[in-house]
């Protein structure tokens, strides 16, 4: 494809590094209880002949769950690990592409339910699957400027695929919450972040449409791989690092193969991405995808571990982060339900139950 001038990195790329160092004070995940195996989708739509299923199974929300209820639980887990009171949060931001209301913020319900103050910033973020990391970047600026001590950023989705569409195998529910605060109280310091965005028509959903559309020819190379490698490479070059300097890496996970290949392109080994590669067992949690992968890494991380995180959102963009785990991690890992414990809480459902739970059966 043609590269115009705005796609070449500037000679001194503008890394985001706040004047006051910041990091994650707490983190929390949420995965709902139900699982729909990919073979069950293949049974219904292809007579079981789906060649090479993209994942093993995906997480499906219960009838009484949505982005608000799931965000509340992940936020409570993050607060438990942070060891702060919810009233100390100065901002609550929720990134999602499945906010329950078209108009009425998710963030205010979450704030009220976790016991936050009314004297705060609250808002919902949208950027396909990178709305959560965009909220994290905003929180870095908010805390890094000294205007606030603690900001809560959440990426959470209950993604839907059109029945029978390729996305129906993977579109899943789950996500994570992070509390950004001063580096001296952080379990993970954010060394720097860098983002890369272009106007790319790979995936979209128009207003009032229940299911998204995707431009098949645009999803791989020009969208996912181009943006993730651009953000990650630029960040690593500017910091003078290579894949060998990191203990772990985690990338956005629309299926199993894409993050594996992105890792390979950037020089990472399968071992480096293994603990954060959750898509085979929970599916693509959209705004939650890369950051819930990071929660599974933090659950087992040791002080000093360096981590590369890169999200991807269609439309398109990628936010990359360079992180270093501190000694505070050890005392906080066990203070809330671990991501693998949520994954182990598993009830398999068939396609008919899934269709009822996800409102795919029209009753009027």
């Amino acid at each position, binding site marked *: 494809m043609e590269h115009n001038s705005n796609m070449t990195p500037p000679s001194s790329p503008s890394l985001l590094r706040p004047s006051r160092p910041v990091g994650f004070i707490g983190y929390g995940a949420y995965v709902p209880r139900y699982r729909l195996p990919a073979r069950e989708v293949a049974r219904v739509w292809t007579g079981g002949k789906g060649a090479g299923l993209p994942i093993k199974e995906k997480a499906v929300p219960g009838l009484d*769950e949505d982005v608000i209820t799931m965000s509340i639980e992940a936020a409570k887990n993050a607060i438990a690990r942070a060891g702060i009171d919810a009233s100390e949060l100065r901002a609550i931001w929720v990134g999602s592409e499945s906010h329950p209301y078209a108009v009425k913020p998710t963030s205010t319900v979450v704030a009220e339910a976790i016991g936050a103050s009314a004297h705060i910033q609250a808002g919902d973020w949208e950027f396909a699957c990178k709305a959560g990391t965009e909220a994290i970047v905003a929180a870095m600026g908010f805390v890094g400027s000294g205007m606030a001590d603690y900001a809560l950023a959440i990426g959470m989705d209950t993604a839907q695929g059109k029945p029978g569409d390729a996305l129906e195998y993977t579109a899943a529910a789950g996500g994570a919450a992070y509390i950004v605060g001063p580096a001296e109280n952080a379990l993970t310091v954010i060394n720097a972040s860098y983002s890369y965005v272009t106007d790319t028509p790979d995936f979209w959903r128009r207003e009032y449409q229940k299911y998204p559309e995707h431009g098949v020819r645009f999803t791989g190379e020009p969208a996912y791989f181009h943006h993730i490698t651009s953000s990650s490479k630029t960040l690593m070059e500017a910091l003078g690092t290579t894949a060998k300097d990191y203990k772990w890496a985690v990338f956005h996970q629309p299926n199993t193969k894409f993050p594996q290949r992105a890792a390979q392109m950037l020089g990472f080994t399968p071992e480096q991405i293994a603990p954060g590669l959750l898509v085979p067992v929970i599916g693509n949690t959209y705004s939650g995808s890369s950051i819930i992968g990071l929660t599974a890494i933090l659950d087992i991380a040791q002080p000093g571990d360096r981590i590369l995180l890169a999200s991807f959102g269609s439309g398109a963009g990628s936010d990359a982060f360079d992180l270093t785990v501190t000694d505070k991690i050890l005392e906080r890992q066990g203070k809330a*339900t671990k991501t693998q414990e949520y994954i182990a*809480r598993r009830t398999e459902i068939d396609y008919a139950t899934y269709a009822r739970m996800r409102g795919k059966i029209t009753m009027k």
Partner: protein
Amino acid sequence: MEIPRHWRLKKQRYALIGEVCPHCDAKIFPPRDVCPECHREAKDLFQFSGKGEIYSYTTIYEAPSGFDSNAPYTVALVKLSEGPMITAQLTDVDAAQVQIGMPVEMVTRKMRDDGDERGMIVYGYKFRPTLNHI
């Protein structure tokens, strides 16, 4: 649907906030401003831990309007670890798994949806089997 009533009950429903008696330390839920133990005034707010156990239960197959999309579901009398007994829906559990004495914890879930996809979504507390023992 009475929007103002939902708005007033919000704290109590989202976060299980009740009261504690300043005279005898009894924990009170739902809040009623008078202590059921010593009958004196009790207006201090108290945040319940959300942990408890099932005291008794029943499964609803024919749900009232507004709740029918969730049927069947189980309603339980939950004895909170701080003392009070409350009635609540159970979630994330199959009816056959429910047992008296089962440890449960509070979660915030959708209680009802105005059905026509146009009204307000009401959130509130339910209980599920305890995930861990932190």
